[in-house]
């Protein structure tokens, strides 16, 4: 496997979607090619970083409006005993 092929298959490699034989060829290349190692490591890290994207909380008024629209307020929300 050459560098260009490695770059094309990186994503599938990281997602464990390559056939074992192809995977072994890729690993073999990585062992002797530092450039491709950095390529693969940085893409892996990129994925790891973006997996940590925050799940922000929903603003109170947005939540309230949604539950009103769906008429959940009539079922009785413990927080709405005003």
């Amino acid at each position, binding site marked *: 496997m050459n560098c260009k092929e490695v770059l094309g298959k990186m994503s599938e490699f990281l997602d464990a979607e390559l056939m074992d034989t192809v995977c072994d060829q890729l690993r073999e290349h990585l062992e002797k090619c530092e450039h491709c190692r950095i390529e693969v490591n*940085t893409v892996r890290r990129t994925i790891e970083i973006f997996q940590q994207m925050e799940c922000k*909380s929903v603003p109170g008024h*947005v939540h309230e409006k949604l539950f009103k629209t769906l008429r*959940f307020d009539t*079922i009785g929300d413990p927080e709405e005993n005003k």
Partner: protein
Amino acid sequence: MTDYAKKTDVELVADVQGGDQAAYRFLVERYYRKIYNLALRLVRNSEDAEDVLQETFVSAYKALPNFKGQSAFGTWIYRIATNFGLMKLRGKKPVFVSLDEPRDNDMPNIELTDFSANPLEEVLDTELREKMEQAVSALPDDMRTVFLLRDVEGMSNAEVAEILDLSVPAVKSRLHRTRLQLREQLSRYFMERGGRSSQKAMNP
């Protein structure tokens, strides 16, 4: 009293279909935060994200009697939300202009910093998080959609393909291009950040 919180999506869907409207509330509670976050990053403004959130759960409720469960409820609700989000975007400007030809060949061979060495917890600070939001927000609509569903929401290639009516290879190729693009941006960012911190070390 029924303990809805312990029920699976499949059970809650069956409850709603059997006429128990209260069960829908628990499905909404399980997903509305995720849907809001997806919508916000997809449409990139809070007003439209709020609309998408509302439209998603209203139309899902109406469609639920016909939901046969061929796909998981989660996939189905993401599909509805994604479609509403894309409709919002289409109303604003043309989307899906970029096609799926591999562009790796004309990608300039930039100098990469190896930013993979430091522990994740060390690098993930407010500044990087801001950078990440900017980078995702700057992606073309089609790439952003695939990336959000696949890498941020953690869906499978097959699920994303189903949600977007794309083939699995098309999802993979878009995802690959997007990851490379985001990687270049992170690389540039970490290079600049490294420069800043070594400067600080020199002139404390």
